[in-house]
């Protein structure tokens, strides 16, 4: 029997520790690194949203950029054209944009395709979204929408000024920690467990009276909503929404984070996103070697650590404990899946 309450406490602790580490980071790092850390925080949740689909219901999405860009552009348009709308309204609209895209696309696609076909379909749709953005004057075409203001949140009695990059950074990390923990709670709720059962054995789950498709669609919409929320949160930080964020290479990012960190662990994508940020930073002054460096590194991880970095570390720890004979089972979050 797994002690859920203890696991909940442990994962809440992980989210809080992560938050604290991100919070003290600006004390020791310069503004470029803080900006990168803010992007990494967004990427962590972007990766988690993707893994909800992949490890959750076993759907491989190659088009998560369309949700991210959907949320980002919705937020950009709202901030530039409806400046009177409260900031929370923009976030909500951004997240909903992703949810709606996911609902429409998922409703059609999940009835028809699965596996690699589903992946290519998401890729094709996402490319279409990219092209539509580059052709829509309202969305700034190829040049994107620039000069997006950061908000001042009015709470009646007091107001929170998020116009500086640092203040907004703190908003990002709090928002991302909350969403990440909410996502963990969802995955460990009865609904979340049902979704995982679908992945492990769709036929048997269906036999037990579950409507597999509608649960897959639910997960898809949830994943799209969260990815779009990430895009919406990122836009006032970067102050630009450009078509690059809808390009297919952005869709590969959450996949890389997840596999690098470890798909079998809830926090795997988080580890991967942080690692990727570090690689990005380390290769920032290399001439013409960044493709080959990233490529080799990824190949190395996939070949030598197929469970990702987290899987590799945890399995070593397990092995070490077994060797010392303590016999105590390590509580690994969602780690029972073979990868």
């Amino acid at each position, binding site marked *: 029997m797994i002690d859920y309450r203890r696991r909940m406490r442990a994962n809440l602790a992980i989210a809080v520790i992560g938050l604290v580490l991100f919070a003290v980071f600006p004390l020791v790092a310069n503004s470029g690194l803080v900006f990168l850390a803010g992007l990494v925080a967004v990427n962590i949740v972007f990766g988690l949203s993707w893994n909800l689909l992949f490890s959750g219901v076993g759907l491989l999405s190659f088009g998560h950029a369309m949700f991210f860009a959907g949320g980002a552009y919705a937020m950009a348009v709202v901030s530039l054209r409806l400046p009177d709308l409260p900031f929370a309204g923009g976030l909500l609209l951004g997240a909903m944009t992703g949810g709606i895209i996911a609902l429409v696309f998922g409703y059609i696609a999940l009835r028809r395709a699965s596996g690699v076909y589903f992946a*290519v*379909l998401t890729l*094709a749709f996402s490319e279409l979204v990219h092209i539509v953005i580059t052709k829509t004057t309202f969305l700034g075409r190829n040049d994107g929408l620039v000069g997006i203001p950061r908000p001042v949140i009015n709470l009646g009695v007091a107001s929170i000024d998020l116009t500086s990059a640092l203040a907004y950074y703190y908003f990002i990390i709090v928002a991302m920690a909350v969403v990440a923990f909410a996502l963990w709670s969802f995955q460990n709720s009865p609904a979340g467990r049902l979704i995982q059962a679908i992945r492990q054995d769709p036929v048997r789950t269906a036999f037990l009276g579950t409507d597999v498709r509608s649960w897959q669609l639910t997960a898809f919409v949830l994943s799209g909503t969260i990815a779009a929320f990430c895009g919406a949160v990122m836009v006032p930080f970067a102050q630009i929404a450009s078509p690059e964020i809808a390009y297919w290479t952005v869709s590969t990012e959450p996949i890389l984070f997840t596999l690098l960190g470890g798909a079998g662990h809830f926090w795997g994508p988080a580890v991967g996103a942080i690692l990727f940020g570090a690689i990005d930073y380390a290769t920032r002054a290399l001439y*013409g070697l960044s*493709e*080959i460096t990233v490529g080799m590194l990824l*190949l190395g991880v996939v070949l030598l650590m*197929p469970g990702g970095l987290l899987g590799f570390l945890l399995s070593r720890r397990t092995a070490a404990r077994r060797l010392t004979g303590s016999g105590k089972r390590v509580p690994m979050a969602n780690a029972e899946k073979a990868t």
Partner: protein
Amino acid sequence: MVDIGLTVFNGLAWGMATFLVAAGLTLIFGILHILNFAHGGFFMIGAYVAYSVMLAFGGTMPLWLYLVAAIAAGIAVGGMGWGVDKLILRRLRHVEDAYSLIATYALLLVCVGAVQLVWGLNYLSVMPPPALNSVVFLGDMFMPTYTIFIIACGILAFIGLEIFISHTEMGRLIRVVAADPWMAKLLGLNVRRIYLVTVVFSFALAGLAGGLLMANQSLSPELGGIFLLQAFGVVIVGGMGSIRGAFIAAILLGMIESFGTYFVPQYPGIFFLVALAVILLIKPEGIMGKEQTA
């Protein structure tokens, strides 16, 4: 009338160039069930190898030398396929498909990086051999001979692959493994070897396609990505690794792209994607469906 004729001709050229790239991709997809991102990268390496062979012979080339360069590229890239199977694909056979997908994506990055290091970033251009550098007139319609050559290569590649898959011992073995690797193993087939042969053959096709198409477009480290999505579309629309399906899909998508551009010129390059999405929604298992493999 001339316009329609040319539009069909251009559509065929698009389709056959894409089919040449997609043929090896289809083969590997049918047997190993992975979409090989690196295929685009090795196609590009094939084009660059052929270019180097051509330079080694002084740069001007008769048709036979052009073909020799293409075949040399096929052999060289096939050899790389042998290494890739031994070092990478074989190790990933028992993990989820997503990992192979990521491995091939990583390999694509390595290919791009390697091309930059070996051949540099400059754009290169190869002209077709003199024998293929003219125009054939059909009434008022003008058809460049090199374009005719590409279409012919595509059709020949299709016929060759059909004969190989349907009428040779190796082809039959490949079909058996594609249908049911577990059963094939029980029957005592050397599945591992058949996988290796498939991968090498698929890579060799990528290299050959690179060599044949070297004069079709400019060479640069971007080349790997240019045909990739097109080739993916053709493989998927064709259906689970079906060569015949891919051939039909290539012609179909080529025509859609070509006529789309003809009738709605204000949206260039979008018809292929729209067609891909629509076809997959109507018939997600692809033209040749699931039952027929390889």
